[in-house]
């Protein structure tokens, strides 16, 4: 049965285009938009206007970002589907493969008299990962700064690990994500080239050895 056209539906159509409705309202609006040409017009116009909003926000990024992004792509393999190496290998075998994969990723440096930084990347196989960030070497320590971290269930924390070339994971501080999904930890500096810095989810208080697979990491090249 068709839903009747009303002024409220017209408003919902507009709000739908702006993505300002909850799930139920959006579903209602989309059903009606398919049936009502007036509201379909309103939706189309609002969608175009929303495009204008986005387009008007355009701003040139720093020039250095281009090299960083293109370099990262050069070193990153293309996948038609997430690589599921974690499903096939045990942790230590996986971490070796991951280390190799990460070593192949482009790691950007920030030339500076004071500090150097490396990109934190989601690992192959970490299909639900949307985190990123940096590891910054400054003043003799490594500062891990991650964004896009998910809130963890009670009793779980994030834990950093340092894995030197050929070595086993060494437990480093645990940390939590704040309300914005930011998390940070300070680790010992002076790590040899090729050291992998990884993050896992562990029980509160941390673990002596990883109990889950790492989902983000950076290689200190």
């Amino acid at each position, binding site marked *: 049965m068709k839903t009747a056209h009303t002024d409220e539906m017209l408003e919902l159509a507009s709000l739908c285009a702006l993505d300002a409705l909850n799930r139920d309202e959006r579903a209602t609006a989309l059903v009606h938009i398919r049936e009502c040409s007036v509201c379909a017009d309103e939706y*189309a116009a609002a969608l175009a206007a929303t495009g204008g909003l986005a387009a008007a926000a*355009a701003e040139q990024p720093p020039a250095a970002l281009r090299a960083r992004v*293109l370099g990262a792509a050069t070193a990153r393999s293309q996948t*038609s589907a997430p690589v599921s190496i974690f499903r096939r290998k045990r942790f230590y075998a996986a971490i070796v493969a991951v280390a190799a994969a990460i070593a192949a990723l482009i790691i950007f440096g920030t030339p500076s008299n004071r500090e150097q930084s490396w990109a934190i990347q989601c690992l192959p196989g970490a299909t639900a990962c*949307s985190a990123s960030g940096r590891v910054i070497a400054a003043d003799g320590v490594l500062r891990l700064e991650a964004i896009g971290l998910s809130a963890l269930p009670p009793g779980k924390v994030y834990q950093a690990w340092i894995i030197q070339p050929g070595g086993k994971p060494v437990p480093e501080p645990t940390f939590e994500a704040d309300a914005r999904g930011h998390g940070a930890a300070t680790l010992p500096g002076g790590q040899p080239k090729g050291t992998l810095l990884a993050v896992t989810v562990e029980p509160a208080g941390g673990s002596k050895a990883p109990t889950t697979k790492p989902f983000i990491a950076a290689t200190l090249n």
Partner: protein
Amino acid sequence: MPGRRSRSSEPHGMAVDDTQLVKRVAAGEHDAFAALYDRHAALVYGIARRVLDNQQQAEDITQSVFLQIWSRPQMFAGGNFAAWLARVTRNAALDVLRSAAVRKREPEMPTEMPSEIALEDQVFEQFRSAAVKGAVASLPDDQRQAIECAYFGGLSYREVAERLNAPLGTVKSRIRIGLRRLFESLHQAVPS
């Protein structure tokens, strides 16, 4: 329908070229990826910066979004690439903004494209033009504020009403009238 045009009649402009570039990216062509970056980095970075109000995070989002395109170009299912990219970027930036909520996923790559809207294509083609920025800037403050709160803040209209301490009906009306006004301004500002 105002502003609507058959997509089959638009073999011009960036939409077609972008689609070709994405196909070349899928074939592993770095030059095509660089061309997409050069064409759209400002859009991606600008949206992320506007949502997050943080340069470093905006750079990280820009990198993340473009690397997703490089790694999984097949996620773009067609339509206007810039419009799709804008939505991907907004979703990724809002994920960071709302990360208190449990949303374990990669930046969303929407495959559902809206109805075919010629003006939207033209707007994205012209996004560097002062005319588009001018059209947005010309909105009355109360309308622009409500619209931008929802779009860049990721707020529902109810949350916008709370944020602006305005009645729900007023906010809904401001948004609808503002978007309609912006659509008409863009129609005049963007040459067809």
